[in-house]
């Protein structure tokens, strides 16, 4: 096929020219003609199965799916003929008939693509019989992160494509056929007992309320209103650049200060920052990396595994536990920033503030659904208590703001509380793919050489960007004496986001085809800013805007390196002694387990 051929066609009698290989839907978008879609999603391959986007093509007996139909020269398309309208209305009515339209009580009320279509095409009485069956009312809420409600499922298969294409997990697949066709785990096992990584990417792409995160809002309200409890909240780096989307702002708007004020108004006793423990992670993980390098390069220790991978992303952790358990020794033993925060909230923070940890409730606001599972892992109780009590997604946080009647736009920005509220730009960029790597290099390079990284404004651009797998290397020269074993070493790193890309990297590593020292892996596309707990919808443009905002956040910080964060310096002086100390190991490091293969 010749490339760059231009195809001329008409849509609703308007001429349009698009490149060969475009779909009718894309051509219509160029003309600003709206064709409704459901199964179609910018991040996923074409399915063409919901049939909501059917349009009339002159000369064709049947209607064609705009999302799947390639344009041809001279094609004449009608998107709004009577035939199209009637068919589309029927399709929407059919979907409604197999959907438990419990709208007023549904978590996705007013942010539901089926509801929007119903408003446009099928107000008034239902035409068809209600097909939702009793047994479908059985809701799978076994997972700490995700609830699957088949009675609201319209079988668009976006979740299945997400799980397979973006994440290469396929914890869910299409099963059965005909009227029995549905979305299933392996032999309908509870979602908590299969390879699901809890990443929540399916939740982000579900057009209805069939897949949602498990909601902990009421527990948090109860804690806030319990006078006995001191409720601390931590805010993840990616939340401040996305929460605005759920509150009427355009994607990419930074609302850090307003977010903090909102949390104070909600009644949290102390509003602290996960960015602080992101900085702490850099200290711990950077030290761990340098230690591993020393063991391998100097002591020739065969037991020490390289490359080391990051461990901040709980979706990634569960993925490797299921899929590459033999490579668990490669994963950094550092807890994620959320869990480091939790362990310190009920020890260091309690001590400093003179609080009984028994009475501390630790809440986190995360862009992530997997963090809910992570907080519930039995290993995550090193403070002697459950380190993080409740995890809320960005979306749940937005619901709380609305519930409290807060007018977010008019809030005056305030700063995070102290202690554990101070952070650097390095902590801030944890939210974007490549951010952990960049933060780590900023610190590790300086520790080893005594000089800042050789990049303009400390911006390590080779590790930035939306490419699925990024590779970079950095030659270490003129080391400080104690790091002389690294002299001349070319540090090789890789960054992957989205588990399909992670899988590719891990395959290359296990086949011996890659010789990296350090790999950053984030389970979600774009990193945490594309997390499963982020505002819906998502697409690559939205994710790019959130990333741009993250780097803006970094540039606006007075401190850009983790090791220069004064609260970090303080916590090592007052409490942890030094990175990877015995105490740090006790509280800030963890271990992993092999999990089932289905």
């Amino acid at each position, binding site marked *: 096929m010749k490339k760059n051929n231009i195809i001329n066609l008409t849509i609703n009698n308007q001429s349009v020219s698009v490149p060969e290989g475009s779909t009718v839907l894309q051509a219509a978008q160029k003309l600003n003609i709206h064709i409704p879609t459901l199964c179609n999603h910018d991040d996923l391959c074409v399915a063409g199965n919901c049939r909501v986007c059917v349009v009339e093509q002159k000369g064709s007996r049947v209607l064609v799916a705009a999302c799947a139909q390639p344009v041809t020269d001279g094609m004449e398309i009608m998107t709004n003929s009577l035939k199209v309208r009637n068919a589309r209305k029927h399709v929407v009515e059919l979907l409604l008939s197999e959907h438990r339209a419990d709208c007023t009580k549904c978590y996705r009320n007013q942010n539901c693509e089926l509801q929007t279509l119903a408003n446009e095409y099928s107000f008034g009485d239902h035409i068809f019989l209600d097909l939702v069956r009793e047994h479908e009312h059985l809701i799978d809420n076994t997972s700490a992160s995700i609830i699957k409600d088949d009675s609201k499922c319209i079988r668009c298969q976006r979740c299945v494509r997400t799980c397979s294409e973006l994440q290469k997990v*396929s*914890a869910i697949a299409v099963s*059965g056929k005909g009227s029995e066709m549905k979305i299933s785990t*392996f*032999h309908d096992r509870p979602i908590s007992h*299969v390879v699901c990584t809890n990443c929540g990417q399916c939740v982000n792409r579900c057009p209805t309320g069939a897949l949602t995160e498990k909601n902990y809002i009421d527990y948090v309200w109860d804690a806030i209103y319990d006078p006995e409890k001191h409720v601390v909240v931590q805010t993840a780096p990616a939340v401040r650049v996305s929460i605005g989307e759920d509150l009427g702002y355009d994607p990419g708007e930074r609302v850090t200060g307003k977010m903090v004020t909102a949390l104070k108004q909600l009644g949290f006793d102390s509003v602290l920052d996960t960015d602080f423990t992101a900085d702490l992670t850099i200290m711990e993980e950077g030290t761990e990396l340098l230690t591993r390098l020393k063991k391998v390069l100097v002591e020739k220790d065969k037991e020490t595994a390289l490359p080391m991978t990051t461990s901040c992303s709980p979706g990634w952790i569960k993925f490797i536990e299921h899929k590459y358990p033999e490579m668990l020794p490669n994963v950094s033993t550092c807890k994620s920033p959320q869990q480091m925060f939790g362990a310190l909230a009920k020890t260091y923070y309690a001590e400093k503030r003179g609080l009984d940890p028994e009475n501390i409730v630790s809440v986190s606001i995360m862009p992530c659904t997997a963090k809910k599972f992570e907080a519930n892992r039995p290993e995550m109780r090193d403070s002697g208590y459950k380190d993080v009590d409740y995890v809320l997604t960005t979306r749940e946080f937005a619901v709380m703001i609305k519930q409290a009647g807060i007018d977010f736009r008019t809030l005056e920005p305030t700063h995070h509380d102290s202690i554990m509220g101070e952070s650097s730009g390095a902590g801030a960029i944890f939210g974007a793919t490549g951010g952990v790597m960049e933060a780590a290099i900023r610190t590790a390079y300086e520790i080893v050489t005594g000089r800042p990284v050789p990049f303009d404004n400390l911006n390590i651009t080779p590790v930035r960007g939306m490419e699925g797998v990024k590779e970079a290397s950095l030659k270490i020269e003129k080391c400080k004496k104690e790091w002389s074993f690294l002299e001349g070493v070319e540090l090789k790193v890789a960054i992957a986001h989205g588990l399909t890309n992670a899988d590719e990297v891990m395959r290359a590593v296990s086949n011996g085809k890659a010789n990296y020292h350090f790999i950053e892996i984030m389970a979600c596309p774009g990193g945490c800013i594309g997390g499963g707990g982020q505002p819906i919808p998502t697409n690559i443009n939205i994710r790019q805007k959130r990333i741009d905002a993250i780097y803006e956040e970094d540039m606006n910080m007075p401190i850009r390196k983790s090791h220069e964060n004064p609260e970090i310096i303080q916590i090592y002086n007052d409490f942890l002694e030094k990175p990877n100390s015995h105490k740090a190991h006790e509280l800030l490091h963890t271990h992993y387990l092999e999990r089932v*293969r*289905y």
Partner: protein
Amino acid sequence: MYQTDNLVKDLVEKHGRQRDSLMPILQGIVEKHNYLTDEAMVEVAQELDISAAEVYGTASFYSFLDTEPRGKYVIRVCKTITCAMKGKEEVIEALEDILKIKVGGTTSNGLFTLLETNCMGWCHKAPAMLINDIPYTELTREKIIKIIKDYMHK
């Protein structure tokens, strides 16, 4: 519980590890054991490097790739129009009487499972049924009793 260890490995050896080997492998397991256990599906998934949910999802699309326990002899009575017109109900009744199970059930000795199926291409000799792979046509109560007795004594 049946042993799949060597069976799955042998089938994978024979048909290969590509995705397009999945059907022949699953068919091979069913041929030997009449249905797919979870263990077998997980093993196939690992051999072919695909997810177990996908193996289950694919198997569950095909009515002959059962994922629930089945007897040694799986009886499938055609229920489509001509067989329905020509006495399919009597066939089912006769089978239920002799096997003492209902459609969907398996005899307690694990020998027979009774199922219905869609048109199997014997309309001119209706009513018809399959026992495993073998078709039986122009069924009458007497004929059915004889067929089943023969299987009981196999």
